[in-house]
């Protein structure tokens, strides 16, 4: 007997799946924005000559890169609700899973972004900083006006690729039973006894999105290849 596919539960589930996708994208977007901002700060700290700052950044990055994302998420689902509930005096049963996931992802991804950004900053020739100083710019001005713009141009493909990985990683919020796209697909499949179809459908959707995005990144890379 060959398995008989029955895709009929998918059309009706599309609104739920779409809501799930919105959650996935929301987490991805927040994590990208926070990740790049906080990652840039971490990278600058890491490269700075002030020892405590560079030590802190190195410790932060190495710690997060040594721990599985699943563990990080579990940690944040444990800590964040207590912490935020205490801080804002929320009732103890407030659902803070989405907030926890966002904070967890953002802080975790910052570690990875900071490594990309650090490499980007280091790829700018040293003479550029010397030239800025010779022109009388402060360190901050030099970074903001000269070094970072060049560094980011070199990094764009890597940052985007990391964003695709991040989008895939958001499926791990499954551990908190949060209904992201994958969580929604799993729930529908489980409910209708059509797990096979729903899982394959989820895989297909992720593949199409990520493959298209990675092709786009490749295309951009070719087009804007730094000379």
């Amino acid at each position: 007997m060959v398995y008989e596919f029955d895709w009929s539960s998918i059309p009706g589930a599309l609104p739920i799946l779409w809501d799930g996708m919105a959650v996935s994208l929301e987490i991805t977007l927040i994590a990208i924005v926070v990740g790049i901002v906080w990652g840039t700060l971490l990278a600058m700290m890491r490269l700075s000559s002030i020892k405590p700052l560079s030590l802190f950044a190195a410790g932060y990055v190495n710690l997060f890169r040594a721990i599985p994302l699943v563990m990080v998420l579990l940690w944040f689902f444990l800590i964040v609700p207590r912490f935020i509930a205490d801080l804002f005096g929320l009732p103890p049963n407030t659902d803070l899973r989405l907030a926890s996931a966002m904070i967890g992802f953002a802080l975790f991804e910052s570690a990875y972004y900071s490594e990309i950004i650090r490499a980007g900053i280091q790829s700018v020739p040293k003479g550029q900083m010397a030239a800025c100083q010779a022109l009388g710019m402060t360190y901050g001005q030099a970074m903001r006006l000269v070094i970072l713009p060049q560094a980011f141009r070199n990094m764009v493909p890597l940052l985007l690729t990391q964003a695709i990985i991040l989008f895939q990683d958001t499926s791990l919020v499954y551990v908190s039973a949060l209904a992201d796209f994958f969580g929604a697909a799993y729930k529908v499949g489980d409910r209708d006894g059509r797990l096979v179809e729903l899982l394959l459908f989820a895989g297909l959707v992720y593949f199409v999105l990520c493959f298209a995005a990675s092709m786009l990144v490749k295309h951009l890379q070719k087009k804007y290849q730094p000379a």
Partner: protein
Amino acid sequence: MNYQWNWSIFLQPTVVGDTTYLGWMFAGLQMTLMLSLSAWVIALLLGAVVGVLRTVPNKLLSGLATAYVELFRNIPLLVQLFIWYFVMPELVPQSLGDAYKQSHPVLQQFLAAMVCLALFTSARVAEQVRSGINSLPRGQKNAGLALGFTLPQVYRHVLLPMAFRLIMPPLTSEFLNIFKNSAVCSTIGLLELAAQGRQLVDYTAQPYESFIAVTVAYVAINVVVMTLMKKLEDKVRVPGYMGGK
């Protein structure tokens, strides 16, 4: 926050009474190591083959290898895991699927997890192998061919030994990744390190101690692997080449 720390919890016997909670942690650690190492061996072999195929002068073979890499790179690991665990047994020939479903549940989880991690990682290894081969001077391949080596011999004796040396650093990070990624397999119920940590939280109500212990274990794996790989890297370093003596 008034949290009662209790580190002695690890020495207490578990509710089930089979061992101490520390024993559970070690069982989880053992599972993580077994799973990751077996998957890594497969990933390395498979990745080398696929990576080589991506560089061969044959459109069909290199196209297939590219498709393989793209397939495994563009679907989240968790989704792949669930497909291996829930979907594949339904789609393979029934006798095979039945044999799988009748085997021990832990074996089922382990097999699905191992195959999933191995194939997922092999696609990433393949990319590294390909870039390693492509970064070698083109003349190396010609020199091998000119000496009468067949193309497989050129790969075996000339290109791969150097390519693998060149890609040691990224391979190390893929090796580290496989341990971290193995934590995803807790989602299908495999009692590896992260799953034991969660189980401990449920049984002991001492979440911080449990999570700290698990986290420390992962950091320790990280440090050990990095140290070993650094040793290996020094050992295979080619004299007079790339920082060698």
